[in-house]
């Protein structure tokens, strides 16, 4: 079992972090558990500041419209991490979804949606954590385990 714990800050926005791990001979399943928090940032002031800072392609009027739209539609800012698995053969799948608690399981008969069922190939794998959105510092904990026949 391998465990990664780290924090991400808004400076990590739009970056990838590669976490290597090894699949040993005889291993029949992969099990990864990914948790990060916070997910939702309840901070309307932050949203408005982000619009002013980031939406530079919009005119002042359009930015104000966007802020009002944010209030009208109760938009919230959410941290979002995408998870991509790379096996020795190439891409083994990706989880691009909003949950901040995810379990990824890969075996010959079953795989979590987004991933391909297979007997995990022995060798060096990596989990790529892609920081799609990060508005406030987040704590990340990833556990990569093996599961043999139950």
């Amino acid at each position, binding site marked *: 079992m391998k465990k990664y714990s780290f924090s991400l800050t808004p400076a990590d926005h739009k970056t990838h972090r590669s976490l290597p791990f090894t699949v040993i001979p005889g291993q029949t399943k992969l099990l990864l558990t990914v948790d990060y928090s916070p997910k939702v940032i309840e901070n309307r002031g932050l949203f408005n500041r982000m619009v002013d800072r980031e939406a530079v392609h919009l005119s002042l009027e359009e930015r104000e419209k966007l802020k009002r739209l944010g209030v009208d539609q109760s938009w919230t800012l959410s941290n979002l991490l995408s998870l991509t698995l790379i096996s020795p053969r190439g891409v083994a799948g990706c989880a691009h979804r*909003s949950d901040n608690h995810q379990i990824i399981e890969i075996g010959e008969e079953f795989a979590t949606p987004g991933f391909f069922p297979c007997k995990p190939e022995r060798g060096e794998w990596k989990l790529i954590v892609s920081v799609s959105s990060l508005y406030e510092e987040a704590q990340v904990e990833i556990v990569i385990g093996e599961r043999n026949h139950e």
Partner: protein
Amino acid sequence: MNRKEWARIHTHIHTLHSDGDNSLLEMAKAHGDRGFDAFYVTDHNTTSAMTEAVAVKDKTGVTILPGVEYTTFYGHILSYGGFLADWTELSPMTLTVFLDKIKGEGEVSGIAHYHCLGYPVCTGCRFEFDGSGTDHDKLTGFDTMEVWHGDRESWDVNHHLWTELLNRGQQITALAGLDAHTIEEVKNSCFANLVKIDPALPLEESIPVGLKKGALVLSRRELLDFNVQVDDISCSMGDIYKGRKAPGEGRITINCQVAPGNPTEDTGGKYSFMVVTNRGRAKVCSFSWEETDSQGEFSWTGTMGALTGSGDKLLWLHVELSREDYFSREIRAITNSVYFA
């Protein structure tokens, strides 16, 4: 017009394999209920839904075609064909290499929702590979782009970009991108892509051919097609005219079926054909439902020279169908182009 020569498809659909709310089976049933023949499943950065495609087609009769939406920090790129690359290698610096790589695998590439809200609302949803519109040379490697996507303002901005790329000599196919994440979006969708197919081939083979060529119409409902004839050379959507004679010496025939499959639908108002080229636009005729034949079809033929004008070299030509009443005018369908070498 033979309806069997057309497939009704969506080109941008998500499932539980990424951030969709519904399974592939549920999405296929929703498409079947709405009379669709097929759709491309384009989950974010994965093609794993295709592991269910055969079983889902067996249950629903709807053909599932392989695609992926590379969901990067700088824009979303559609790829049709089934090859899956590592999206984390894709950035503005590597775009050309990445497109060459996937096209080398036989993929058809596409710009997804060019005009869209980006960060901080949605990272990467706004297409920024071209420096937010400052460097269109970056877009030369794309085969398709979503012109109908999102709100009306986005349609206009996307349409403007499509025209600009065509004017630069790029042969790029316009698509209607639903980008559905739920069955409700499929049920409520107000447009489709109509692809010209070879009815003798399975849809899995003939739709990709039509998509790659650009033999495709963006349509709210109507079937729309046209043909350019210069002497014995005949060209339709996606073809490149290479004849010696000036295209202005030829003729163009436009065909439309107003309410395919359901003549009880709203067919009021006046319909118009518009011929659009890089030289300008020309309204060629108007007609009403009453003037169509028993199949709801209407045809018009005219000389090319009168429509395409003069000036710059003629690069491309396509056709729009609109409908208007006292209160509004609405684009009902847009064909893709015939190109002139």
